């Protein structure tokens, strides 16, 4: 009994005396696709930033969009690769935080509506009204391209998703949405067009079973957001340095390729005003 208690005490002490965090600059990213791909991509980004900024940099993987926003809000990470919606939410919660860089193609992002070929819905230029009455898979509940924008267009053309569709589900991420529609678990769904293109280029999509039936008009999406209170921890002008380093990633094709983007360009909070408005309109953003 005695030794157990001593060991317990030691354990508890060790637990609370854990490492006092040094000046590590931590960042996260919304888990929009397969984790290994994210690990691969952001591991490289962490190494690159460490070199450029001269501080220890750590990538913190998370399991949900909300966890990414929470980690940013709670100052567990100081930088994040957000989607349009998660970025807007994070900046509402953390005054002083700013969007600093985005992919050039993120200014004109799209959602692809996809359907199982068994539904016999043909690709069209205008919104596919034949979706009504089917089962439909969004991506994550907090995704811009997998939830916010597709829901916006569904509401505009058909009505509230839970009334329009026979069943509504949330797949969790875009790779998963494609799989679920291909297997027929859902008849149709909405995916990030970049993920679709990447998977297609790899030959990972069974085009006999799932295809694109409609492409939304363009909207702003992914971007890097940084917290505001970093000068005292990391030195004067730190935010500008980070922004420059991120834009400098454009000269590293192998990293840009993992993002499926050609280059990063400067971004600002007002680039995402449209997302905020859509979010408020469909009630996902409530303040």
């Amino acid at each position, binding site marked *: *009994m005695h*030794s*157990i208690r*001593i*060991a*317990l005490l*030691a*354990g*508890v002490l*060790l*637990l*609370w005396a*854990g*490492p*006092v*965090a040094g000046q590590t600059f931590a960042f996260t990213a919304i888990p929009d696709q*397969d*984790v*290994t791909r994210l690990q691969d991509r952001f591991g490289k980004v962490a190494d690159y930033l460490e070199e450029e900024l001269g501080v220890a940099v750590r990538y*913190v*993987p*998370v*399991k*949900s*969009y*909300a*966890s990414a*926003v*929470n*980690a940013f*809000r*709670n*100052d*567990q990470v100081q930088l994040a690769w957000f989607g349009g919606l998660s970025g807007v*939410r994070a900046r509402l*919660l953390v005054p002083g935080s700013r969007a600093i860089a985005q992919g050039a193609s993120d200014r004109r992002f799209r959602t692809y509506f996809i359907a*199982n070929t*068994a539904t016999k819905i043909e690709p069209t230029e205008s919104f596919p009204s034949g979706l009504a009455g089917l*089962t439909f898979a969004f991506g*994550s*509940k*907090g995704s811009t391209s997998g939830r916010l924008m597709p829901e916006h267009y569904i509401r505009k053309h058909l009505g509230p998703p839970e009334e329009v569709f026979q*069943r509504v*589900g*949330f797949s*969790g*991420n875009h*790779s*998963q949405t494609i*799989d*679920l529609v291909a*297997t*027929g*678990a*859902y008849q149709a769904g909405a995916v990030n067009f970049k993920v679709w293109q990447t998977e297609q280029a790899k030959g990972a999509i069974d085009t006999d079973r799932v295809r694109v039936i409609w492409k939304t008009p363009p909207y702003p999406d992914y971007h890097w957001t940084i917290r505001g209170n970093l000068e005292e921890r990391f030195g004067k002008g730190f935010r500008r340095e980070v922004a420059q380093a991120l834009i400098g990633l454009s000269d590293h094709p192998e990293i840009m390729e993992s993002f499926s983007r050609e280059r990063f360009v400067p971004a600002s909070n007002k680039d995402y005003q449209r997302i905020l408005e859509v979010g408020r309109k469909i009630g*996902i953003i*409530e*303040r």
Partner: protein
Amino acid sequence: MPRSASLRTSLAFVAIGLACLASADLAITTLHPWRELGRFTWGLVTPSFQEGGTLGLALGKTVAFALLGVAAGSVTGMGLALIYHRRLVRVSAAFVRAVHELFWALLFLQFLGLNAITGLLAIALPYAGIFAKVYAEILEEGDRSAEPALPAGTGKISRFFFARIPEVWSHIRTYTVYRVECGLRTSAVLGFVGLPTLGFYLDSAFLQGDYSRVGALLLLFYVLIALIRVWLRPWLVPLYLALAPLLLGGSLQVSMGNVTRFFTQDIVPLGLRDGFSWEALGSWAGDLLTQQALPGVVSTVVLTQIALVATGALALAAFPLICRHFVGRPEKVVTHIALVVGRSTPEYILAYIFLQLWGPSMLPAIVALALHNGAIIAHLIGRYADALQLGPDTPRNPLVRYGYEVVPRVYNQFLAFLFYRWEIIMRESAILGILGIHTLGFYIDSAIQNLRMDHMVALLLITAFLNLGIDAASRIIRAHLRLRTTPTYEP
């Protein structure tokens, strides 16, 4: 009308279960469910142990969280067991038990962040509630005859350690080891919300369709649990507990600012943050109840009742296969392994697997809950039936022997176990909503994804009260039928 009260109750529950079944969505929506199942099974038999280091670390962290969490829960629970006669202690313990570990983790994540403390508290807190109750029951049952033999003036603490603990030590040890096994399952599942345990890697492997890696992770987990009595030696426990914190890693910092903000701002109903009015509160509560709580409670109860009946049916069908009155030793071993796999796989992981294979409906959840809980009860009833002595006049035909002798003799014990697991099944039904079935967990997860902590906390409270209600109903029925389970025999 059947004369036996047990039979009448059983038939009523079966009728309710069937009525729920009629209203439930049971569709298999994937086009090739069996092909996926085939791929999955193939993955299980061709496990890939690549990146063994990562696998080992995941396993190590799973054990570390489990041991530290259960140890903290056990010490706290023992303290509470001593004052368990106090109403406040009993009510608080019942409340922390009523909320599933995964919900606790989701709650702590919001203000402690992705942090080892989140994982430890998510295990330690509900387990403290469980330990308090069971330890108190064990102490209650214990032989107190040694106490008067102590010299007069022996202090309270000495009295407790020298006269009461030794009497019940073996029960406490057995139960605590059993809880370590549960803690391992809980710890593994916490990975699904982002802690670095087995579930984290399982989720990733699944989403990539890498079934061989899934197979490797699951097999390692089964071996870990099957060998628990080999590696969990009393004299090794202090060593493990000392080493475990080193394995947890990550930041252990907690920002009080975040905690304060959570309790003073985030959980205040949205309409009331600029000032209180009854009208605003009414509309907030009205929306929450009609659009989220009510549909969530209905689905949760429907799933619970179906799963309860399915669990019972499975247990009754499976127990003869591990019972010496029906099968020989080789068959017994095979069934035993199947049941160990069934009960070692957390229901969350089972449901997750079936959901991937068959698509989203209640069916995967029902099958997962029935397999997990049915395996536990079948195992216990099998052991109980093994202890029965059958007379020389016992029917020779095994079916007749089953129906006319063995089942009637084990039936009350069976019902006791089943009703004991009723509230556990409900707690699990709620949590499975996170996977997309529209039980309470679905609405709680949505509230989290929408960053609506006010909704999340309110829904968690509703879930807890539903659980306490079912627990109370179960106790009333068990008392009415005079069913009894002894603490250490409880599943």
